[in-house]
């Protein structure tokens, strides 16, 4: 317990650092995956190519990635950039597939209707297709967030300070509390970020709850299909 109290400041710093370093790959991965996922969704040929390629990227072990990247892109081995770029690659790998699947999940009738209303392609993508792909995109983003937060702990193996430092350092020095604290704080951060994403989803996509409401349809039926019955309900 003493260790915990003595190191509160360190834990706090590492937590902030951890959040900062994981936010970049999550956001960057999300943004980069949108065009990539769109291209994969839109054209049959590119779909296979892109999804196989990102699938392969994801199979590279993280430590190997930290070693392969610097000679390719010229970052120092021990640098935040190295870790952030590696994690961004993983994030894109997961998200690109999510975005492609999400866009494919949008009801074809709705897309047709939007086109028939006179939406141009670009506007339709951003105001109809993408928002409607939202729930599936969000599911992918939650996976990315949690996996990025946990993967980031490995950064401490190459000397970038994250919550992983509490494992490596605690392990070397035989401080069990340190290791446990590292694990618990990492898990808590992952859970909190996950909850926040869910809440953000509800805020940005209020319609998903309307669709999920049990009995929404039944209530609507009960409350009239025509003017006369609707008027009764209103009065």
């Amino acid at each position, binding site marked *: 317990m003493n260790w915990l109290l003595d190191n509160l400041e360190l834990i706090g710093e590492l937590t902030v650092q951890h959040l900062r370093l994981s936010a970049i790959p999550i956001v960057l991965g999300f943004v980069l995956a949108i065009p990539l996922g769109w291209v994969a969704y839109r054209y049959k040929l590119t779909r296979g190519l892109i999804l196989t390629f990102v699938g392969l990227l994801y199979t590279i072990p993280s430590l190997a990635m930290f070693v392969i990247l610097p000679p390719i892109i010229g970052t120092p081995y021990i640098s935040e950039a190295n870790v952030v770029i590696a994690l961004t690659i993983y994030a894109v790998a997961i998200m690109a597939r999510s975005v492609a699947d999400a866009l494919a999940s949008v*009801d074809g009738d709705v897309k047709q*209707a939007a086109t028939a209303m*006179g*939406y*141009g392609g670009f506007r339709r993508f951003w105001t109809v297709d993408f928002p409607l792909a939202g729930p599936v995109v969000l599911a992918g983003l939650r996976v990315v967030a949690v996996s990025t937060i946990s993967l980031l702990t490995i950064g401490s193996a190459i000397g970038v300070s994250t919550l992983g430092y509490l494992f490596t350092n605690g392990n070397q020095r035989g401080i069990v509390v340190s290791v446990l604290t590292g694990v618990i704080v990492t898990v808590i951060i992952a859970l909190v970020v996950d909850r926040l994403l869910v809440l953000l989803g509800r805020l940005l996509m209020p319609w998903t709850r*309307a669709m999920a409401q049990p009995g929404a349809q039944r209530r609507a039926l009960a409350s009239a299909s025509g003017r006369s019955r609707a*008027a009764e309900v209103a009065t």
Partner: protein
Amino acid sequence: MIEFRSIEKVFPDGTRAVDDFSLVIPSRKTTVFVGSSGCGKTTLLRMINRMVDATGGELEIDGENVSSIEAVKLRRRIGYVMQNSGLLPHRTVVDNIATVPRLTGVSKKDAHARALELMDTVGLDRAMADRYPAQLSGGQQQRVGVARGLAVDPNILLMDEPFGAVDPIVRAELQQELLRLQRELGKTVVFVTHDIDEAFLLGDQVVILEKGARIAQKGAPEEILANPANDFVASFIGADRGKRALSIREVDGQRVVVDAEGTVAGRLSEPGAA
């Protein structure tokens, strides 16, 4: 007036969906394309707002060739109502109805005010304005679809099997509503259905289509019923069976009408008599 002149549509895979199709669709009347699935009726409908482009022939709206009009602009001035309503599930009822006015740059306030008026027009309670489509019944969704189609007060309203997915009672209700709306608004309605009863009920001009969008017969419902052009039409409209094959029988000096099954359909009154 919408005029098809020798319209042809060959899809990239070589299917001839439409072959040498010519037709004049008069303004302010309801024209119904009716035929079995795959006859090309929806393809014809979608050519009017360029969801499908013809590969041959000319299609004019009030003398203007549609291919000379930018597709997106053209669509914004033509109402479109489809099966399963095609409402945007992430927009509320009022936003759905206001979709096209908003696309054309009408302010949110004005578009919403107009949307609420349209809810009255199609018989929807304004209390539903802030609901999402998933919270409405099939019939209500279809009414929203119609209101959305009318939002920019278009001259032309395209309806692609709009009542195909609702139960028979609601369908009958919606059909009557459409007849009422048409009496009030007088749009050029082009309606697609596979239901001949619906076609006869709603159409001023009914166009019966065979495969490849060949016109088997066109005309007012009573003309088609009185003189089916060929066996295909006769069988399609069911002229020889059921409730269309009526005969007169005398019962106690009164003449009653019975259908092919022998079920009494009604009493025959003399022309001019009450």
